[in-house]
């Protein structure tokens, strides 16, 4: 052993209760990396099956050797260093790939058993876990751009409700009846493509975001009569969908105006149904009061914002931008318009992102560069970057990913390739 070998005293701290080691300081060589420390923990716990651990110093993941990380953070090597350890997140395991004809614009996981895709051919398709298409519902006149559901709804008790927005400027509410999703009513009023739709947790209201630069709030109750007169449907459309069922139409409760360009994404505050967020082409991220439909606060960015998600656990807003960066904002602080954190790692526009349903650190994002990235916000680089094997077409062009959803253990992605990718994570 060389005499110059640097050593330092560390104290392992665990926040979870599964794997706990005594908190006595241990002397370890400074050149150790994550794997070496993980071996030590495994050795102390004398686990039969080795469990990989990740280590955090001052809330930042250890990437590289202890020595370099401490030096970078200006932490003295003389003192006892507290190292928090967590069980490593395993890479999402690809479960299935289901191919369909046209581009997938939106995906949804219902019940952990059903996978729903909204497609550019205007159809909603429902797939079960054995890759079979249970239903193809083509009611929209244009490409389906977004689908949404209530997190608590299941198909078992028949309360499953989904909403779909389309480029035909309408949104349709669907109900699960007789093993099928049946369109209930059509929400009309937008003058542009509906790019995003969101339902509140109680399924009382939903909001739609459209490229006509407005947000509209609708109540989710089924109207008794048609509230909007559809006077003249374009003739060309008539010819295409002659068999189209006439749906009850519904008018919006109120309209939120304030965005200057198209609104790309909107979402209810996951903890407070009276608040909603939206972002759009005008580089702004806005918070809305749903009761009065007023713009409460605006966070200004300088890049077009394409996707938005709000975390229930840490209250952070994550936005995906047209400069391939994911930005994190504090949604509770209405005054602060500063970016809390920037996650860089994508090489294309970030088209969709979602927080982990259970963790306050983990985030998944899908990008036009064809990759699905899993982030832990304690580190600015992605934890995992997954490229579906069919991410390139025959001519070598990257197939963009357009949709992502994370429900419990499943991450579903879809995009230009028309393939629905389903991944399973150990980190629910």
């Amino acid at each position, binding site marked *: 052993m060389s005499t110059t070998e640097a050593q330092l005293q560390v104290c392992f701290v665990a926040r979870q209760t599964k794997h706990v080691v005594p908190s006595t300081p241990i002397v370890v060589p400074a050149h150790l990396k994550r794997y070496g420390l993980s071996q030590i923990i495994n050795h102390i716990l004398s686990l039969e099956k080795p469990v990989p651990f990740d280590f955090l110093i001052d809330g930042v993941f250890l990437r590289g050797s202890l020595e370099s990380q401490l030096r970078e953070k200006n932490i003295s090597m003389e003192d006892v260093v507290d190292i928090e350890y967590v069980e490593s997140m395993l890479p999402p395991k690809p479960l299935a790939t289901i191919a369909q004809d046209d*581009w997938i*614009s939106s995906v949804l996981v219902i019940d952990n058993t059903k996978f729903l895709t909204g497609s*550019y051919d205007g159809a909603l398709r429902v797939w079960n876990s054995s890759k079979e298409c249970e239903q193809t519902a083509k009611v929209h*006149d*244009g*490409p389906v751009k977004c689908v949404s559901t209530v997190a608590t709804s299941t198909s078992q008790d028949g309360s499953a409700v989904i909403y779909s927005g389309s*480029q*035909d*400027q309408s949104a349709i509410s669907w109900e699960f009846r007789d093993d099928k999703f049946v369109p209930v009513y059509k929400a009309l009023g*937008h*003058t*542009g*493509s509906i790019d995003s739709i969101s339902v509140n947790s109680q399924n009382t209201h939903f909001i739609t975001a459209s*490229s*006509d630069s407005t947000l509209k709030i609708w109540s989710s109750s089924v109207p008794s009569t048609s509230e909007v007169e559809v*006077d*003249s449907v*374009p003739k*060309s*459309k008539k010819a295409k969908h002659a068999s189209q069922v006439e749906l009850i139409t519904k008018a919006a409760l109120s309209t939120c105006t304030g965005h200057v*360009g*198209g609104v*790309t994404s909107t979402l209810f505050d996951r903890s407070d149904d009276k608040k909603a967020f939206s972002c759009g*082409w*005008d580089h702004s991220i806005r918070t809305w009061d749903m009761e009065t439909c007023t713009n409460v606060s605006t966070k200004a960015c*300088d890049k*077009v914002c*394409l996707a938005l998600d709000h975390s229930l656990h840490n209250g952070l807003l994550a936005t995906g931008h*047209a*400069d391939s960066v994911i930005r994190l904002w504090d949604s509770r602080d209405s005054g602060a318009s500063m970016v809390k954190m920037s996650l860089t790692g994508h090489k*294309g*526009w970030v*088209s969709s992102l979602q927080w982990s349903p259970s963790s306050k650190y983990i985030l998944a994002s899908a990008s*036009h560069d064809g990759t699905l990235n899993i982030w832990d916000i304690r580190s600015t680089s992605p934890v995992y970057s997954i490229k579906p094997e069919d991410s390139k077409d025959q*001519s070598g*062009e990257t197939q*963009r990913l*357009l949709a992502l959803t994370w429900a419990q253990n499943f991450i579903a992605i879809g995009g*230009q390739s028309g393939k629905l990718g389903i991944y399973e994570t150990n980190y629910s």
Partner: protein
Amino acid sequence: MPTDSESESDDGLDEEEIDEHDSDFDTLLQAVAHDQGLGSGDDSDDGYIEGDSVDEDEEDEESTNIDSETESGYLTKHSFKDDMDAWKNERKELANIDPVYDSDSSTEETTNTIGNVPIEWYADYPHIGYDIDGKKVLKPMTKDQLDTFLSNADDPDAFRTVRDELNQTDVRLTDKEVDLIKRIQSGQIPDAEYDPYEPTVEWFTSQKMITPLTGAPEPKSRFIPSKWEHKMVMKLVRAFRKNKSTQKPRPEAPKYYDIWAENEDQEQSDVRSRLPAPKMKLPDHSESYNPPGEYLLTAEEEKEWLETDPDERKRNFLPKAYNSLRLVPGYDRFVQERFQRLLDLYVAPRKEIKKNDIDIESLIPKLPDPRDLQPYPTQQSQLYAGHTGRVRSISVDPSGLWLLSGSDDKTVRLWEIVTGRCAQIWKFDDVVQKVAWNPDKDLCLFGVAAGDNAYIAIPDGLCDQTRLTVTEEFVKAGFGNSKDAEQTASVSWNKPTSAQQEAGIELVLQLGGTVKDLSWHKKGNYFSTMHSQTGNTAVIIHQISKHQSQIPFRKLKGLVQRTMFHPTKPWFIVVTQRYVRIYNLMQQELVKSLDPSAKWISSIDVHPQGDNVIVGTYDKKLAWFDLDLSTKPYKTIRYHTQAIRQVHFSRKYPLFASCSDDGTIQVFHGMVYQDLLHNPLVVPLKILRGHETVGPLGILDCTFHPTQPWLFSSGADQTIRLWT
């Protein structure tokens, strides 16, 4: 008085003169006679006084000679002329002197004139040269060796015979010459008559001469006091009287000197600025005749020395050791080295060159850092692939969500900008030259130029029902009154066929030739088309609401390249091959004619505020015009290596871009200030590369996004790219 002997010798000389110049002599005599008359009056009594004639000239002497000779004539009282004739007859005839070369005995006769050339050259010829008349001088008979020997043995004068090689003759030396040779041989003075020991004659002695050297009287200045001296003395006297000092006061020398003070004397500084010639290096040990061993070069070093260029050698000699100074050979390069040194001294300027202390950086105009001018497109973000031909034209819809592209594959495609999805395809019968969205946000339609037709189409499912209705009504409103309008221009407004109608095409305008360009007025009611046909009908302005077309120009100069409506003023811009002409449509007159001094203009765009125009040309130039300033370019930018195809201003950001056949797009910051004091600021920002060039064609069209700092470009490589 001249002596007898003198007069005699003179006499002979005179006779000859007389003989030669007969007529002159008469006049001379008359002159003498006249002189005599005068002289007899003065000098008849006392005659000539000895010594008086010291300064007299020769003429006087001559006249006296004649005078003495003709004394008898005066006595006999004969006429002078008769006497002279008699004398002429009586006098002895002397032989004329032949004025040939050898009349002087001192010069030898030289018959051969070949000069100082070896006589051997004439050995093979019968002659030995040429005489003065150019005639050959024949070789005299030569004796052979035996004869010569025999004759020499017989001849007592053989010892004094010398061979004259030039004339090939034997010359016998005279006694005098032999004597001369003998004297030279014995080291005596050659001239026998020269006496080196003659008694000295004291021509100039210390004794006083009896007569002075000159008889001139004492000059007046010797005995008259000088006027100027008198004046000077008087000045002094006056000064003395007034008790004044006569001396000039000396300039007072300063008591102390600042020896470190800067000497401002021009001459001094001039001397200082002159650099002394560099001194030669002092010799060191290696230049010794027997240097210590460490100064001697090894074999490798010597080889290296020999191989290097003489100018690059460290030292210009090879150190060598000799046992003694005697063995050191002469320095063979001495002359060259001196010459080099002198040349250096002569040629090199020994004067300090005063460098202008200018910071080159300060001369470059201060441009802002491109990073401060963000946002501007820097990288490719999206690729819209699908066309199977060159994409000639692209257009972004006013909302900024949809992109339209027209291609050589005879299709027009509609793309969703965010996702890159091709939403709709229209097929045409001809190559699509131009696509253009209607700039009116309340309408939802676009124009396509393909073949001989211009099409007006409404895309499917982009706009809501009310806008769609408005647009349809707007487009179809003119069908009622279109009949009579057709006569005004050779344009027919046709209803689309059912297949076309299905695709969303609402209007078909049939024009006379292949439509090359189509551009909208900002309000969306009017659009102009330009087709390949020459003449005034090439440019037509159409009004959609009334289905009317009109030809704005009675005649058009030059080949029209582009047409465009001015964004803010009622102006119409016509781009011909060389010039950009701006017409006022209201007053029907030419407003301005811009000259970018280019051979062929390709493209034009007007700044959204309307006072600045950029022009791209096929000869690689981009010219920026300030319409308020001049009709000449405010700035000309030559950065592209190939023809510029399109230029475009961003509507929202102070950006403009040019795309070229070299496959690059160049993005510039083009800030136009509101106040008239500032000139527009143009800063090059970024060169975007990514498009492949196909043959001679690169990027064919580029356009900015209406609301974002994004740039779209389409090229011959069948792709459309978005740069953000």
